[in-house]
């Protein structure tokens, strides 16, 4: 009996919240727990997952990036421009990714090399990037219609969720980087004990730089897929994304300030946000209510998460 209670206690609270939400939502609509709806949820949340793992990487390394949404946006814009210029798909993807990498590299340079506070540097860059996005698009979205490109984010034949598959590939790539490369391990080292890592001979400046640049790369790829899915590059689409990404990271159990965390946990956080979003539609919450509701529920969840983590730390 005790064992069972212990097991239940070990389930992350976020999962329980998700479970309850799913049950509640499925009571409202028979269409909720259908394969088709789940596919749609997957398609809609997959890019957020990519941005969230970028946020998780930065947070693991003890940093913060408020420009992730903006990086995704501008990468989407350059991607759309490249598609419409008729470039081959591979090159298009590379351009999107490189745009993100370059933006992340700017963050990394400002933070790791020049020594700026992450939130100032990334907030400043956020403003700059949205400016560029608006200017490059003349303030209206750029439509793309190249079928080969759109395929990357399409729900092919209404069954094959290509956006989710593309994002899953990026996720596996990120997971590989986290667990099997020097970059991933050093992100933990810098977040956990930066001075210790430096004294152990780790070039912390370079690796910190690379963490931001890598996060930028992920957002760039996320931007490519988002444009493919929406078939339009909107110059302000990324507003609020970094908040949801950071929230997903925290809800996924990666705590702030210490070098702990795992991008696998972030999936749960993204799932919660995705289910909330789709559920609000099912429950017929008018779209106008949704930003406020989602914002409030996310904040409440973070508050609970932090309180619970604190309690657990206190027990030790």
């Amino acid at each position, binding site marked *: 009996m005790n064992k069972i209670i212990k097991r239940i206690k070990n389930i992350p609270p976020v999962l329980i919240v998700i479970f309850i939400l799913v049950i509640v939502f499925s009571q409202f609509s028979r269409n909720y727990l259908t394969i088709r709806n789940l596919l749609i949820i997957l398609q809609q949340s997959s890019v957020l997952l990519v941005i969230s793992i970028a946020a998780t990487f930065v947070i693991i390394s003890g940093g*913060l990036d*408020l420009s992730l949404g903006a990086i995704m946006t501008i990468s989407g814009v350059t991607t759309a421009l490249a598609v419409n210029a008729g470039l081959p798909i591979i090159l298009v993807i590379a351009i999107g990714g490189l745009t993100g990498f370059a933006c992340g590299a700017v963050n990394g340079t*400002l933070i790791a090399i*020049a*020594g*700026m*506070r992450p*939130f*100032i*540097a990334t*907030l*400043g*860059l*956020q*403003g*700059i*990037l*949205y*400016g*560029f996005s*608006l*200017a490059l698009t003349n*303030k209206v979205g750029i439509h793309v219609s190249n079928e080969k490109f759109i395929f990357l984010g399409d729900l092919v034949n209404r069954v094959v969720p290509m956006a989710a598959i593309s994002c899953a590939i990026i996720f596996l790539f990120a997971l590989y980087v986290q667990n099997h490369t020097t970059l991933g391990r050093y992100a933990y080292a810098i977040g956990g004990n930066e001075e210790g890592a430096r004294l152990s001979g780790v070039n912390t400046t370079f690796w910190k730089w690379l963490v931001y640049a890598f996060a930028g790369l992920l957002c760039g790829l996320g931007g490519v897929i988002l444009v493919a899915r929406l078939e339009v590059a909107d*110059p302000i689409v990324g507003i*609020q994304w970094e*908040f949801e990404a*950071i*929230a997903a990271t*925290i809800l996924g159990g990666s705590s*702030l*300030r210490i070098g702990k965390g795992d991008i696998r946990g972030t999936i749960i956080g993204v799932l919660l946000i995705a289910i909330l979003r789709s559920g609000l539609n099912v429950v017929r919450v008018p779209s*106008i*209510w*949704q*930003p*406020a*509701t*989602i*914002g*409030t529920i*996310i*904040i409440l969840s*973070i*508050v609970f998460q*932090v*309180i619970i983590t*604190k309690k657990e730390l206190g027990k030790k």
Partner: protein
Amino acid sequence: MIANKKKKVELISSLSRFGALFILVVIGSMISDVFLSGRNISNVITNASVMIILGVGQTIAIITNGPDLSAGSIMTICAVIAAILVKTFGMFFLWAFGLAIILGIALGLLNGFMISKVGIPSFISTYGLQWAVFGFAYLILRGYVLYDFTASFRFLGNGYLFGFIQMPIAVMIIVVISGIAVMKWTTLGRRFYSVGANSESARLSGVDTDKTVIYAFMISGGLAALAGIVLVARINAVQADIGRSYLLPVIATVFMGGTSPTGGQGSIIGTVIGALIIAIVQNGMNLLAVPSEWREAIIGALIIITVLIDILVRKRFTHLQKA
């Protein structure tokens, strides 16, 4: 000797701010004849007023704990509430203002509570609150624009005190003077600085750090509400994203004014100068008809460049100190 060097760095750092302000004024007068006209100058200062009112609260928040990224959204929702109370419910404007400011203070309290009692870092909790509050503002106004308020409402934005001081400027001056007074001459101001400088030492010295942080964010929230009301009274219209464009410039204002991002150091006068710089830059962009999409980018670049220069100046001078 070392102390002198340190003082010198501070001096150079603050002189550079006045220098930048001066250079901008010169550049401004060169690019346009209108720039130095009385009308334009009063326009610049009036525009700066809203930013300064926000900036004073932001400075106090940053000195004590960290940035209040929700200020722009608090400003918005309070302006919206005040406008609706007057316009839709026909409430006497002063009561409406009072209620709006109380709402601002309450949201600040919520921020302070999440930061100090729950322990969520300020940039997360305030950033999160921002999105929730913007959501509510949007929910209330639904993309409409409320405009055309009564003369008494608009007095705060367009009226003149003693017949010659524009009301926003008068409000700004009162806020700045009280802000300076609080930070300099009260024990509360001391506590703000001490908590920002070293929270653990402050706690062990008997300062109620949680309460101090909550007060700082309450002040920031209250001033954000005030700024929102002044802005609406001035432009005679309100919509659900009115405060969105203010967040970045206000943060820029505070850091350009020399307030330390790590807390414990900074001044309200510095913020005033920073706000004037930003207001001149914005005015210059107006005069030069810079397209709107570039404006945020320019402000963003301005933040990064000023903070970068400050870091470089400090590095250079601490280097000299060693040699």
